[in-house]
């Protein structure tokens, strides 16, 4: 195994446009911040209109008067894709990238799935870009809190529509791009998103579609399993669900060295060990080495803060991921993650059964409410006035997305995907797992999305397609129950609802700047007392109130980091729309 063969986790930063000395200095500062985090850059591209730094997962092509580049969390992008228009590269490789001409005009673009994370900060005649929000934020001259984004973090779990915690910086959504024109004008816009064109076709040959879907995922995974990197080692993430076992089976099938695979499981802190136990059963069935990694209860606070930092304080759905991420840092080989499976393949996140007679507006509202159900418990965690304001802001932020797809045949899927998968879920594989090893997300490729979105809903509803997909991946998976199939009650003590977890979160929030947002009950519950900590524990043991407490903890950690750098940092401003 040589140094050249090892792929680094993906990192990119730079600036494109009419360059000033200040622009160049800021780009250098961003690169230095990355280096302090352990990033090792390839040789920099320092041109009149471009400063670009990439790790070795990116492909870059330099001609006499132009530069093209593409990157994603997985790496291994075919260089010839840079000869095509950026829209094709974004679509075929699910890649972000850039295209520049002489003197700095050009485009920085997002990926087709939107799950690849890229932030942009437009400045006068230039656009700064980075795979990490922190590198942009720490080097910006002016920063303003985006309280709309914070309302969405509390309500949905992440900022929507490309917003970030700062009004000046945005995340590129599917097929979005930032452009610097020849005249030096800068704008952010969106090319047509091809997933809008994929509508249910009837009647499909389901057997053929199933085989094709499995073949497309296998093709996507194969370059990461051919043994040329990391000695053939690879790391499928394996939970008790269907998507991860499908990818683990495909990894075992496609690997040149299946004995080098390790399937990784951890506790998702849901109050049951069935995920890990069922995963162990699947790994044994597939003859794949299996490791279970869980976090220490005494280290809950450290794990939570590290996760928040890794996703730039913008999401906390997968706060339990850090222990396994630390183990993966010393386990070379691509990680395979099944993000998007539930929403695209599994028919999850569907409209309610009684959707048909509802009015258009009610249906839109139900799609938004379904992704922000945590708010039904808001008054237990937040002051009344805060919970009202958060709900109003969150709904208004989600409404344009719900409205855009209101009449689309895949309305519920696309709305859920854009309100949840892209903003809230994708940072976990793209940024957290992706910080450990190159991370492959086969279920959000354009080809898989196309096949899935063209299937009629009834073929996928309630996981109806999974038995065929799993059998096609490996017949040994036929009929194997999932953890959800077996779960009766959740009787384990959740780490987040333990005394250690509750005390960390309660102390963090109550002693921080977001304490003024707390409900009277939580404000009065002193975690140092035996009864006070139980009040916090009981709310943390419930999914909805736990979600809101996690959001307040994120806000507190963010204000600790940026409170002195942003203008108007008082979190009570969240009440003023």
């Amino acid at each position, binding site marked *: 195994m040589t140094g050249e063969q090892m792929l680094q986790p993906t990192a990119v930063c730079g600036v494109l446009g009419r360059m000033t000395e200040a622009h160049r200095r800021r780009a250098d500062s961003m690169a230095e911040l990355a280096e302090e985090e352990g990033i090792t850059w390839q040789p920099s591209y320092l041109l009149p209109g471009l400063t670009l730094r990439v790790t070795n997962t990116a492909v870059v092509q330099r001609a006499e008067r132009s530069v093209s580049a593409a990157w994603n969390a997985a790496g291994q992008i075919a260089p010839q894709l840079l000869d095509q228009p950026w829209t094709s590269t974004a679509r075929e490789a699910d890649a972000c990238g850039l295209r520049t001409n002489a003197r700095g005009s050009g485009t920085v673009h997002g990926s087709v799935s939107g799950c690849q994370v890229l932030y942009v900060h437009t400045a006068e005649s230039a656009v700064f870009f980075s795979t990490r929000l922190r590198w942009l934020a720490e080097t910006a001259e002016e920063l303003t809190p985006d309280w709309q984004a914070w309302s969405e973090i509390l309500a949905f779990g992440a900022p929507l529509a490309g917003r970030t915690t700062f009004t000046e910086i945005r995340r590129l959504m599917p097929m979005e791009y930032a452009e610097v024109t020849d005249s030096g004008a800068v704008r952010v816009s969106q090319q047509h998103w091809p997933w809008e064109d994929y509508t249910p076709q009837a009647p499909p040959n389901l057997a053929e579609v199933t085989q094709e879907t499995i073949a497309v995922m296998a093709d996507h995974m194969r370059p990461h399993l051919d043994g040329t990197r990391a000695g053939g080692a690879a790391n499928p*993430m394996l*939970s008790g*669900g269907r998507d*991860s076992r499908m990818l683990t089976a495909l990894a075992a099938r496609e690997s040149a060295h299946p004995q080098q695979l390790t399937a990784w499981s951890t*506790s*998702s802190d849901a109050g*049951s*060990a*069935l*995920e*890990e*136990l069922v995963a*162990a*059963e699947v790994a*044994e069935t597939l003859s794949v080495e*299996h*490791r*279970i*990694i*869980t976090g*220490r*209860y*005494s280290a809950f606070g450290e794990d939570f803060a590290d996760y928040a930092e890794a996703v730039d304080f913008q999401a906390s*759905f*997968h706060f339990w991921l850090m222990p396994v991420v630390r183990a993966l840092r010393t386990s070379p080989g691509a990680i395979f*993650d099944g*993000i998007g499976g*539930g929403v695209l393949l599994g028919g*999850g*996140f569907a409209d309610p*059964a009684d959707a048909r007679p509802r009015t258009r507006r009610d249906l839109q509202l*139900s799609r938004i*409410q*379904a992704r922000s*159900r945590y708010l*039904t418990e808001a008054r237990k965690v937040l002051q009344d006035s805060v919970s009202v304001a958060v709900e109003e802001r969150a709904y208004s932020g989600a409404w344009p997305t719900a409205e855009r797809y209101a009449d689309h045949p895949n309305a519920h899927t696309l709305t*859920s995907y854009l309100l949840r*998968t892209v903003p809230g*879920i994708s940072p976990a*594989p793209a940024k957290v797992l992706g910080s450990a090893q190159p991370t492959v997300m086969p279920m959000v490729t354009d080809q898989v999305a196309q096949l899935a979105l063209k299937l009629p809903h009834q073929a996928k509803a309630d996981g109806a397609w999974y038995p065929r997909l799993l059998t096609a991946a490996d017949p040994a998976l036929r009929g194997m129950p999932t953890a*959800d199939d*077996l*779960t*009766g*009650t959740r*009787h*384990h*003590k959740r*780490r987040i*609802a*333990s*005394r*250690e977890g509750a005390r960390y979160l309660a102390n963090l929030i109550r002693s921080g700047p977001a304490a003024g947002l707390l409900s009277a009950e939580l404000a009065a519950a002193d975690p140092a007392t*035996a*009864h006070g900590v*139980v009040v916090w*524990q*009981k709310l943390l*043991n419930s999914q*909805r109130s736990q979600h809101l407490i996690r959001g307040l903890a994120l806000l507190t950690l963010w204000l600790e980091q940026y409170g002195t750098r942003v203008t108007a940092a008082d979190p009570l401003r969240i009440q003023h729309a």
Partner: protein
Amino acid sequence: MPDKPLDNTWVGTRVLPAARRAKRAGRRIGRRARSAVAPRIGALGAAALNAATTDLTIPSSGAEQVRRCGVVVLGIPDYPRIPPLWREKLIQAERHSVPTVLMVRSPEDIEHPLAAVVTHLVTTDPQLLAAVRDFAGAERTGMVDSLASGREQTSALFALTRVHTPVEKT
């Protein structure tokens, strides 16, 4: 990355959680009553307790045997993985909300995958208590006196596993 939709129906948000709570409470009450009359401890591996245990690894031991246990106690096996038969019993215990308790005898025991899947960990060694508590949290960690009688050990195991969120003793 696991991502499950919240159940948004009235049945899903009101009826099912209430039913689950009632089921869990019913099981707890039933187990407590049964344990008061005829306490039963299942064992996977060398439990090394003075309390009487039922070996769940014998071929005739089915799911019903696990369900009747008030608690299942496990010793660390020689095997570095969870033995397949034990895994089957642990899944049965999970399905029936039966607490599972790992006996920790050395610092390395908490590195075994069993430590990641049981509900509680206990040790007979006071020197190990801090390390076990560090790993599993105060509410999931207990001490069992190796010289105590079987009845006292049984009582200690049931006291540890009986309450989900106990009020801290000050």
